[in-house]
């Protein structure tokens, strides 16, 4: 049986699972972006906070995902919630790190001129530092998104009804077939690729001035 016909035949279950998958990813990335940006700004300002937060977030990445989701399910119950929380924790490192590096890379002459012209610290951040760090921040979001799309499949182990389910079922049964596994894997890869392409487009539009500046 070809993989295409399998997916089409089982679209009744696979379709909603794909939607749930996208929802989980979207929610965790939205939260991770918000939290990561704020932490990243503080990390850019303080060397000590930077060391601390990067240490914590990279340690989080070393925890195996099924263990993390399992632990979190004790707190927030089974289903999607532990997966969303866990994915937020995984996504933080690239977002925080890229935000901090992006802001630090802004030419001090540019921020100096901004302050010298009477911008408040918030205005310097919003009008100068953030726009100039945007390409780097988007880079972090891309990395995190691709990673989260893949790891979300492990969420099936704690009851998330996403594209991890067909994979988990196939692996759990002796009668499971490669086609069943691929029926989960291929849509996941497509979602990851699409998300990455969209974010790359956003990154390109936000790179106004900065990319050329780097060359000139």
């Amino acid at each position, binding site marked *: 049986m070809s993989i295409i016909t399998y997916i089409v035949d089982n679209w009744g279950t696979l379709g909603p699972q794909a939607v749930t998958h996208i929802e989980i990813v979207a929610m965790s990335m939205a939260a991770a972006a918000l939290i990561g940006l704020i932490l990243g700004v503080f990390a850019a300002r303080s060397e000590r906070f930077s060391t601390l937060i990067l240490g914590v977030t990279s340690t989080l990445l070393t925890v195996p995902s099924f263990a993390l989701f399992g632990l979190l399910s004790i707190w927030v119950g089974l289903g999607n919630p532990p997966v969303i929380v866990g994915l937020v924790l995984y996504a933080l490192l690239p977002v925080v790190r890229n935000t901090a590096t992006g802001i630090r890379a802004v030419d001090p*002459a540019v921020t*100096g001129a901004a302050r*010298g*012209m*009477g911008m408040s610290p918030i205005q310097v951040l919003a009008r100068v530092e953030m726009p100039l760090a945007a390409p780097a921040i988007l880079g972090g979001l891309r990395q995190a998104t691709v990673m989260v799309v893949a790891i979300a499949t492990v969420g099936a182990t704690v009851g998330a009804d996403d594209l991890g389910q067909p994979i988990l079922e196939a692996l759990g049964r002796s009668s499971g077939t490669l086609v069943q596994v691929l029926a989960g894997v291929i849509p996941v890869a497509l979602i990851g690729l699409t998300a990455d392409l969209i974010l790359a487009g956003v990154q390109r539009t936000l790179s106004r*001035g900065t990319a050329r500046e780097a060359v*000139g």
Partner: protein
Amino acid sequence: MITFDRVSKLYGRVTAVGDLSLEIASGEIVVLAGPSGCGKTTSLTMINRLVEPSSGTISIDGRDTAGMDVNALRRSIGYVIQQVGLFPHQTVAENIATVPRLAGWNRRRIAARVEELLEMVGLPPVEYGRRLPAELSGGERQRVGVARALGADPEILLMDEPFGAIDPVVRVRLQNELLRLQKVLHKTIVFVTHDIDEAVRIGDRVALLSQGGVLEQYARPVELLAHPASPFVAQFLGEGRMVRRLALLSVRDAHLAEPNGSGLPAETVGADASLRDALDAVLRAESGRVTVRDADTVLGVIDSESIREASR
């Protein structure tokens, strides 16, 4: 008027500026000059409080700046730096609009102001307004930096080695443009440079600082070159002071001899020439005498003796 009253700035135990007292008159260009690390930038940036003094007061028209709202103070003072610091993600027009925007001007007024400023610094608005800083030459960027600093028409302009990174030819052109603008604008300009030639060219007065922000001499350029107050000043001014000073004096400053019966010398200089140009002409002339002309009118004859007298 900007007044420094016994201003010091210490970094730990290093004195960047020590006990500086200085009066900068409104409408003048005052150049802070001196060797690298002598405290020029520190002195300059204490005016817009990017650096806060450790002691002493700086006042503008009698008002102590320490009591003012710091962002309002900065918006009322134009600021240009050597690295220019244009916002790379904004167009030339957006860059120039920075301070008017912060001050809450409406769109129409900002657009009109941006256009006016671009014209003023010699960059046609239609051609340059929409470019990004990366699409400009160094000299053009510097002009945009000046236009941006003039955004909300501040009374005071602070310039920290604004032409430092520009090649000598363009640099002289930008200096002349600044002098031309100043004739119209009458701003109070504090200009930092470590290039003494630039200092005497553009300054109405020069404040010469030595290590630790010590004021060695504060004088008009002609005075500085003629009478250095200390060996440090003399050394910083370098060789050929009196000859270089001639460049700052005009032929009009000299006493011209009446054209006598023996006929006018063939060599001529214009009435707006400097004494340096006149001396050059005198040295070239067979007779050692040169006719000074203002268009078609003969003003008189100049020779080495009258140049020498005028330069004393």
